[in-house]
């Protein structure tokens, strides 16, 4: 699974430009699903199973896109100015590397700040692509890129850019692999969504098309286990997190209870999560059509939205075990 995560995180696929990720996912799940289609916003939707008596139509969603940037200006010396695609914070950019969709690479640095203790905003940063003028600059206004940083393994921890949310994409792929023999009454939709980082756009349309009865997003969540970190009861190495609430969504308490029940039955450790900022595809699924009961299975992750997001491989493997158990279980919401 580590190799799969590495391959997925290394691909360049910012919001709106996920085709390379989609091709990789498609190759991985070829032959594993009954039906695979791509919708108008580029969501990859794979169906496994047919709804039978006592089953539910269940949608899982992990997003393929990562945060990135768009070129706003090239100056006459070939320096590139940019704006954010998704939640990009200046302090995670400085000194980092960028790869554009057309293959051009560069590094990000900053203007001399006005005051020594003041961080510049994004407009005080620029990308040096090794050009010497506007004319020989390999990128143009409107070009899109993403951050670049090699995958790293330290102990039981994996570090890369785009763990958010490629680690969940890997979890979905592995889960699909593990439920190959499933012939029960649940109709499962494995949705690899697009444009989550810019407002859950892919999940909005995918959910409308799938029209599920229950939805589960799989995404990363923060932890409270770093120096002077957030006030969260979630830590690496303590198992997948069952989300109760985040900045944009309240999980259906019946879904939370179902997830807890299955985890306890299978002896899979879990943590309960309240995240104060950020949200996931589950919010979009919840507000679809007449409404959908939703929850979220979260992978605890440190340093989200930086080029070095960190997960624990055991948490990831336990997430697969929990997800496979959930989708093959009798979905009883009471």
């Amino acid at each position, binding site marked *: 699974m580590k190799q799969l995560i590495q391959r997925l995180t290394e691909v360049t696929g910012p*919001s*709106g*430009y996920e*085709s390379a990720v989609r091709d990789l996912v498609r190759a991985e799940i070829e032959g594993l699903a009954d039906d695979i289609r*791509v*919708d*108008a*916003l*580029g*969501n990859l939707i794979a169906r496994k199973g047919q709804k039978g008596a006592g089953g539910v139509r269940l949608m899982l969603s992990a997003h393929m896109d990562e945060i990135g940037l*768009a*070129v*706003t*200006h090239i*100056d*006459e010396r070939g320096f590139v*100015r940019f*704006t954010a*695609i998704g939640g990009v914070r200046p302090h995670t950019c400085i000194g980092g590397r960028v790869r554009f969709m057309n293959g051009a690479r560069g590094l990000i640095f900053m203007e001399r700040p006005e005051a020594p203790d003041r961080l510049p905003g994004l*407009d005080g940063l620029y990308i040096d692509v090794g050009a010497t003028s506007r004319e020989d600059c390999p990128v*143009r*206004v*409107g070009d*899109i890129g993403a951050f670049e940083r090699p995958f790293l393994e330290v102990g039981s921890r994996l570090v890369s850019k785009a763990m958010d949310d490629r680690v969940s994409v890997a979890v979905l792929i592995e889960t699909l692999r593990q439920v190959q023999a499933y012939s029960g009454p649940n109709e499962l939709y494995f949705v690899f969504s697009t*444009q989550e980082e*810019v*407002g859950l*756009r892919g999940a*909005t*349309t*995918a959910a*409308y*098309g799938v029209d599920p009865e229950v939805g589960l997003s799989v995404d990363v969540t923060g932890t409270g286990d770093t120096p002077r970190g957030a006030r969260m009861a979630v830590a690496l190495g303590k198992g997948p997190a069952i989300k109760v609430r985040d900045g944009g969504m309240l999980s259906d308490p019946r879904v939370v209870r179902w997830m807890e029940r299955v985890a306890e039955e299978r002896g899979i450790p879990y943590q309960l999560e309240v995240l104060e900022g950020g949200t996931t595809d589950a919010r979009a699924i919840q507000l679809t059509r007449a409404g959908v009961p939703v929850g979220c299975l979260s992978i605890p992750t440190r340093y989200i939205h930086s080029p070095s997001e960190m997960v624990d491989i055991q948490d990831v493997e336990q997430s697969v075990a929990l997800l496979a158990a959930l989708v093959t279980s009798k979905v009883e919401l009471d």
Partner: protein
Amino acid sequence: MTEQPHTTPPAVGAEQLALLERLCNASGVSGDEGEVRKIVLEQVRPLADEVQIDALGSVLAVRHARGVEAPLRVMLDAHMDEVGLLIVSDEENGLYRFVKVGGMDDRALPGKTVLVGKDHIPGVIGAKAIHLTEPGETENKISLDTLRIDVGPNGGKIKPGDRATFATRFRQVGPSIFCKAFDNRVGCAILIETLRAAAQSGALDHLELLVAFTVQEEIGARGARAAAYRFDPEAAFAIDSTPASDLPRYDAREDGAIEDAGYNVRLDHGPAIYLVDSGTLSDPRLARHLMDTAGRHGIPYQVRQPGAGGTDAGSIHRVRAGVPSISISVPARYLHTAAAVARRADWEHTQALLWQALVELDRGILAQPR
């Protein structure tokens, strides 16, 4: 692709200027678009096969395809509403307190003439005489809470709930247009001319044209969401106006050696094609189609700088199971103030780009993966 008949795009002549004048001079603040709606209805009724007004007040016009089975369903969108003011309390003696509707810079308000309500009752947003100010006071913003609309003692019948717009009247000066509400009456004008040319020439008979003149774009692209849901199109083009702030920097030198890294969209450089804005990541296939079309027909264009600001496409593309969408805007300076400045030529090029892109639009463009 079969050879397309050569078609001349609609030009911007005296008739079009007169229509835009009427549209820009009309009052239609978000949530109160009636005056604009009336003009739009009068224009499109003779040109469309079906016209209706939806629950929010948007005008939805359909021109069916002719002689084609399973035509491509294309939505064209332009919003009728403008940013403006809402009267919130009557403070006697012809003075009224107001708040803004939509995004406006407070600093653009003092000292302006406005028209209030259906009867266009004139008033002014006064500002204290400079003689009466304290030292240093002119360096501070005049707080919105202290501004009032003054229609004169015992002025006309105005009540809380009435809207007010800038009183600026449309004017042409050389290559330029000065007016208020260029955003987005120019989009409405472009869609009307597209319908007119479609009806007269038959050049868009291969398309099912679903034309939405929407409401409440300036307060959240609300009308567009309902309109797109009803139309259920296969592709959508939103036509709007975008700020060009191509003025020189304070420290610009004669030889232009200190550059503005900020705004890219400029007057005189044609329609702005959107790739990324705050609400939409344009469908790259439609973007390529627009740029290729512009190239084939020698129509100048610019790429609208990625960043803040959005259009109705933000709502449209997320409706139902998703709609490939893109926006094209006419650049203009000083949008959302009492007087914008735009170029007739940019308007004409935007009209031409939309026209040719529609003439040459077919399903094959969307058949490639996104």
